[in-house]
């Protein structure tokens, strides 16, 4: 008796193709147009313009943003099984002070942000500095889907499916020199398109930084999308950082510059209130914020709404197994 049985489905070990091997949905959906053109005999000229059609890159998803699919990431810790935060909450409850200090301000005001053209300058102690257009960055490495917890220092958290690749992929390409100990990230600060740059809430441009080993960690994500589409403006379009084991303000948005430096860079919230926001800002239920405890957090969108119980905050936001060794021997109360 011969058996022609091929296992299907996620749990049965079926190997998923790489995203680069899957026909992009836009091409697949445009195939009938292509056939019509060919039938009409105008194939030659039409094919050329068809292939160059912007529409290929800009087929949109359910939220009217360009699709950005990512293959399921195999990085350990990159796929939490918790319930995803609603897209509506994740994109309308944001801290992006360049667009206002209310949580609802960024979604209202970030429409003026221009995400094309966009360049990220890589400079400092690297052998291959340069200017990277966003189109080049998108293609630099395979896009992955990573489902991370995001914990805000204010005491709330979300679960978000990001799309991007490890920052390490970019760092490897630019070849940091031996004395590059830290990486600094600079957010756009354009008063013409960001109405609150000019308010005295923070020093502009917004800067953040990581130690080199933190920046090289596979979990540190250079993110271009969320929920299968490109980032909405209010979430830090077109490219941002996501460091899931640190408080959310470390995950700089709308990055325009990545600098490799020798000394620990000064960071926006540390400049604003040094005794409250440290350079490391690792999520830590045992180290209180001066104003409130960090032992628990409110998970946005939890069933029960107002009456939902707060969650216990986990050490390193639940990524202790993956990042704990970076801080072995460090006094985390002093290096908050």
């Amino acid at each position, binding site marked *: 008796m011969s058996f022609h049985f091929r296992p299907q489905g996620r749990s049965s070990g079926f190997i998923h193709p790489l995203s680069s091997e899957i026909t992009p949905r836009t091409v697949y959906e445009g195939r009938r147009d292509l056939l019509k053109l060919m039938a009409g005999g105008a194939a030659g000229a039409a094919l050329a313009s068809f292939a160059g059609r912007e529409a290929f890159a800009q087929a949109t998803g359910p939220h009217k943003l360009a699709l950005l699919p990512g293959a399921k990431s195999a990085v350990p810790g990159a796929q939490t099984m918790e319930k995803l935060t609603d897209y*509506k*909450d994740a994109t*309308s*409850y944001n801290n992006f002070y360049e667009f206002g*200090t209310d*949580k*609802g301000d960024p979604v209202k005001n970030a429409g003026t942000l221009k995400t094309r053209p966009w360049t990220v300058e890589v400079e400092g102690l690297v052998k291959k500095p340069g200017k990277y257009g966003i189109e080049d960055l998108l293609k630099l490495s395979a896009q992955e889907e990573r489902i991370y917890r995001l914990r805000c220092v204010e005491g*709330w958290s979300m679960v978000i499916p990001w799309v991007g690749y490890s920052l390490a992929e970019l760092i490897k390409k630019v070849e940091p020199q031996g004395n590059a100990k830290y990486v600094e990230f600079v957010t756009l600060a354009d008063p013409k398109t960001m109405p609150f740059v000019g308010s005295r*809430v*923070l020093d502009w441009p917004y800067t953040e930084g990581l130690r080199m080993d933190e920046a090289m960690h596979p979990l540190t994500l250079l993110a271009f999308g969320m929920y299968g589409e490109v980032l909405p403006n209010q979430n830090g379009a077109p490219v941002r950082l996501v460091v899931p084991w640190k408080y959310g303000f470390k995950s700089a948005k709308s990055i325009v510059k990545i600098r490799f430096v020798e000394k620990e860079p000064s960071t926006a919230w540390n400049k*604003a*209130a040094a005794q*409250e926001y440290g350079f490391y800002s690792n999520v830590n239920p045992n180290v209180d*914020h*001066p*104003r*409130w*405890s960090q032992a628990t957090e*409110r998970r*946005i*969108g939890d069933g029960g*709404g*107002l*009456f939902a*119980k*707060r969650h216990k905050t986990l050490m390193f936001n639940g990524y202790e197994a993956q990042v704990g060794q970076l801080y072995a021997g460090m006094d985390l109360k002093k290096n908050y």
Partner: protein
Amino acid sequence: MNKLLMHPAAKPVIFLLCLLPFARLAYGAFTDGLGANPAEFLIRATGDWTLRFICIVLAVTPLRVMAKANALARFRRMLGLFAYFYVVLHLLCYSWFDMGFEWAEIAKDIAKRPFILVGFSAFVLLTPLAATSFNRAIKAMGARRWQMLHKLVYLIAGLGLLHFFWMRAGKNDFAEVFVYAAIIAVLLGWRVWNYASKRRPKPSAGVRGGNSSEKSLRSSTG
């Protein structure tokens, strides 16, 4: 304006207006219309309205004196009690939604965090004012002692402002705090100016002798 305020419907109308913020918050809570973090929204909104009602109460006397609208005095007790109503809601929202009614944790918070200690003190001080707001209390205490107790509202306003300031200091976000501070400064400053201007000797008191003594009898306190 005085006539309008003396109308029998004035008090119930103003009562309903004062209840409106609460109604909107309750409706929002039950229809999930308070955004992604409804607990934080409620704690913040009830705090905002407490501060606003304290400002409104402090505005009654200056308005009454300057607009000569004595009828405003009828509403001061109700407005003050609404400030207490919103501070109780604020405390309830914090105890319930933030702290799950865990009293040990709440006590620790009050002891450990200055801005919560200050806020809680303001609530503790406002309580005897609410408790002695009815007429029998005024009779039992006597007008002078009652007035001195109720002057505590000036300190309470300052504590409320400090509570708000320290909360916002964590986000470096002082714009709203400064607006309330400016309003309260004007309202308290008016009292200083009013007190100082009454102390000044009146010019040509000899010619208008009778009139000036009548004026000083009718001068108001607080």
